[in-house]
């Protein structure tokens, strides 16, 4: 069973995603900020990370840069609800810093699921 780490400061979204992914038989671990996400990453070695880019203090991008340095091959999906500088910009940034896939929120679970499956293919 693959483990997915969801890092998002929005509790409801995390809960929804966890429920959905659990239903699809993934093991889900969650963090509501970059720092605790980083710890889980070290301790539990997930197979894939879903990372919200706009969190307080722009931790998303920071986390992504750090993550790419230490785990160059770990699949990362960046998601974002957009904001001041526009959804495109955050996600472009995430792409530039090595996210494998990027999605604007709200993203359909089905779309997300197919991206997860593709990235986890051996």
């Amino acid at each position: 069973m693959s483990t997915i780490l969801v890092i998002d400061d929005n509790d409801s979204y995390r809960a929804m995603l966890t429920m959905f992914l659990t239903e699809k038989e993934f093991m889900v671990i969650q963090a509501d900020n970059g720092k605790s996400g980083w710890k889980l990453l070290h301790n539990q070695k997930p197979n894939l990370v879903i990372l919200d880019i706009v969190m307080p203090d722009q931790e998303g991008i920071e986390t992504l840069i750090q993550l790419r340095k230490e785990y160059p091959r770990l699949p990362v999906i960046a998601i974002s609800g957009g904001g001041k500088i526009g959804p495109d910009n955050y996600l472009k940034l995430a792409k530039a810093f090595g996210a494998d896939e990027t999605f604007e929120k709200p993203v359909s679970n089905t779309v997300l699921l197919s991206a997860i499956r593709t990235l986890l293919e051996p």
Partner: protein
Amino acid sequence: MSELLRVLLVEDSDEDAELFQRVLQREGFELEITRAVNAKEFSAFIDQKKYDIVVSDFQLIDTNGFKILEIFNTRHLDIPFITVSGRVGEENAVRLMRKGARDYVMKDQLSRLAPVIRRELEEYRARRENEYFERKLKESEAKFSQVFRFSPDPVVITDDKLIIREINYSYLAMFGLMIDEVVGRKIDTLAMWEKHENFIHYLLKMHLGAHSPSTECNMTDAEGKERTIHWSLKSIQVNDEELLLWNGRDLTELKQLEGKLQQTERIHAIGTLAGGIAHDFNNILAVIYGYAEMGLSNSEGKPRFHRYFSEIIRSSDRAKELIKQILTFSRMEEGKRDIIDPAPIVKEALKMIRATIPSTVELKAHIESGHHILANISHIHQIILNLCTNAAYAMKKKPGTLRISLDSIENFCRLQVQDTGVGITPETMKRIFLPYFTTKDVNEGTGLGLSVVHGIVEKYKGSIDVASKPGEGTCFTILLPLSHGDDENNITDEEPNNTLSNIRTDQKILIVDDEPSIVNYLQELLSSSGISVDSETKSIEALKRFLSVPPQTYATVITDQSMPTMTGTELAYRLRKYDPAISFIFITGNEESIPESVIRDLGQGIILSKPVSSGDLLQTLRGFMS
């Protein structure tokens, strides 16, 4: 203190002349005496120069004081004339005085002479002063009467019974009146006041209550235009009579500007707000969307639930679109602007419009090619779509014609969208550009269409004009500056301080970072701002590259600080040896790893902490290059 006295002395006796001189010198006068011994000399000397006083002997050999005075009077001089004599009768003295002599001094009373002269000089001075003030007063009166007459404000003066005494040109011109038909009438019988009787009485009442009242009044001018005039009422005292000064100030234009400004401000405020909430909104929507999807996939065999969840998803989709539109509106989406011919875009948009508008609407288009503007294609598309959608909506109840034209006028590209629909009432007209204002039914309009158009036009430094008659139709005219393509190739449309349009393009920027993804990102960011960029992932390679090109190829080097083999600052020291003008941007996760002294040493250098925002980076570059 001696005073210089210029005297024209008429005296035929040398002895008396000397005596005269002595007496006055003793009294402290410094004298400049011109002496005439007869009438002929007097007439000559009096015209030669300026004198302070004329002193004449009465009894002369060939003439007398009367004759001299007569000559003096023909010159219309204003200086004192004094007669001196041994003997002259009372009668002669009176005659002399009548004819204009200022005084008469007996030779045996010469001690009187000095005081008389002093008094006369004093009076002379006073006379001159009076004349001066009188002249000034006249000038000032003329000036004030001009100010009154030509004041741009309409001004009326009435007495306390409201009878018009004076009225100025502005007033007459504004309301199309002739001066003769106005002066002498009561102010409230003038046509423009007819509707505002209460206003006059309000002002008067306030005035009697010791206030200086002032208030606005909407009046119809000679051309039938509504004007907002701010009237104030004051008492003025003229020749012991109390009059009323009615001073108007035309605020019409000011009000219009104020309205425009308020509208722009509101649009900006709402835009900022919208940008702020869009993020939260999308997050909430993501949750709703996600659960609905799960619900949908779990409702197989339960058609009712299937329908419910489908509805939720459909609504969420709509909400998502709406948020997108709000965001577009709040920042007009960062779009690249190029010099384009809007004609093909307009034609393309018209195809789409033809497909969506009812067949009862006839579409007539006159599209001229070749009027190039600096614009973003999707913005132009949006303008056309929004205007045409509104136009079609205005004609949904009855058949009509939608006319679209594209041409140019002076330095502008002109786009006109005209319908024969219901028109816009004046009341609605005031609000059409406000975000979220709509006359459409719920679910039919977002109230953002015209705001978006307005925003785009404003951004392009163009103008938008609406002409409408209720029941007849509406015509929107948009003017966008024509582009001649000299210096403005591309303008990226981000925040203004993020644009690099003023950066010299003949110099490049070198990026050095051992992280390829960062290099890629920076490269994309800068090249999209129109800067040519080279990059290296190894500091040694960067150094090699630098040495292989002529000096000043690069304006700035952006380098990571912590790199293996050679740090950013080590690299900088070496590069600077070859090009002292180069500037550096050090990107570091730990600011303290670069001492301030190093930056000082390097001259042009700035440290940016990771993660570096694109805005900071561009702004720093701009700072270096401007």
